[in-house]
């Protein structure tokens, strides 16, 4: 099982990639939300978390999308993209359920992106 490892001077966070649902920006910090609903605040900007994911997963990081300035999501858990309501729901359809908001433009792009995956059979 692959893990994302975030190592700081006094702390090491090790999250299984498949259990990482999304990361949200909190000013200069980021919240990592895992499948069990737990949230972990890390002293990194969202861009730095994005770099760590890209560095550690390389091409396999494609499951993760950066949505605007405040979100990184795991595409495996996209359940609903509602452009009109500016709503994005991430769920594993078992019990983990997160309702997020994003800009209309980014949700349109997300919808198009997921549709393109379906067409190319990449999903």
């Amino acid at each position, binding site marked *: 099982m692959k893990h994302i490892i975030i190592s700081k001077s006094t702390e090491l966070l090790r999250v299984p990639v498949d259990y990482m649902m999304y990361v949200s920006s909190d000013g200069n910090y980021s919240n990592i939300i895992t499948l069990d609903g737990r949230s972990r605040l890390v002293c990194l900007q969202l*861009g*730095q978390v994005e770099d760590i994911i890209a*560095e550690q997963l390389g091409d396999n990081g494609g499951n993760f999308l950066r949505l605007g300035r405040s979100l990184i999501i795991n595409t495996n858990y996209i359940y609903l993209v509602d452009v009109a309501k500016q709503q994005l729901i991430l769920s594993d359809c078992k019990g983990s359920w997160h309702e997020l908001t994003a800009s209309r433009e*980014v949700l349109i792009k997300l919808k198009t992106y997921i549709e393109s995956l379906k067409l190319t059979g990449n999903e």
Partner: protein
Amino acid sequence: MNKRTDEIRDDELRVIGQSSKSNSCSKLLKKYWFVAVLAIILVIATIIILPHTSHNESVQEVFDPSASLVPCEEVSEPIQLLGDYSDTSGVAYTEHLQHTINDIPLDIYIPHNAVASLSIGTPDIKDKSIIFVTQAADIRADNGKINGAFVLAGEPMAWGLSKKGFVSIIDNKIIVGVADNSPLFEEATEKGGYFFRQYALVNNGVLVENEPKNKSIRKAICDRGGEIIIVMSQNPESFHDFAQALVDFRVDNAVYLVGSDSYGFYRDKYDHFVQICEKRRGGYKYENYIEWKVSR
């Protein structure tokens, strides 16, 4: 790494990892360019320096008078503690001193035998366990909430970085510092500690410039040779002049506290209650304070 954060707009979507190959290539290219430039500089430097070194190879003698002309690092005197620590009775009080640095008269407050913490809401002046209190983090004008990251007894109350200075109180230990990201925020949340952000004034003995140029009564919490002191200007001063005075006062690290006519009081050695500034009417819900209380 930070740069990338700003390279995305709110309406943009980016697939993570796809550009990593091209990024790594460009990084590699940059790396080799750097090595090439460094090599050229080294070659040029060698050509210039070599002929001179052959003339300067004479061995310096022990009693060579020129040896005394070699500039040596200035040895500064060790910092003397400001406070009076002769009282061993363990009674909590605040020592008040006055110093003038660069023609700037300063009030200096040193809490003794007390433990620091943060609080939200106006402290009770009747609470005799409080021996020093002054306002800590700023309040946002737009929503009345605390500006910058703030942890109260382990509970994060506000997030974000608007100012680089920070103060953490963890296990009764105060750390005054300057950093974009500090693990002390997380440590404070884990250990039931306290954390807030404010303007940085002095970082490792070096003045930190700040944007506001107006003059006002300035306050700061300072680490001076390991001694935590609160310094307040008696007259309105600019950030620069106040910070320079702190540097010249040999403060290692200093972080601003809410200045101007912000509320504060202390109790002296004789249990006299002294108000630093009177409480204004009204105030904000999230008005917060750093206070020193009798340790129990």
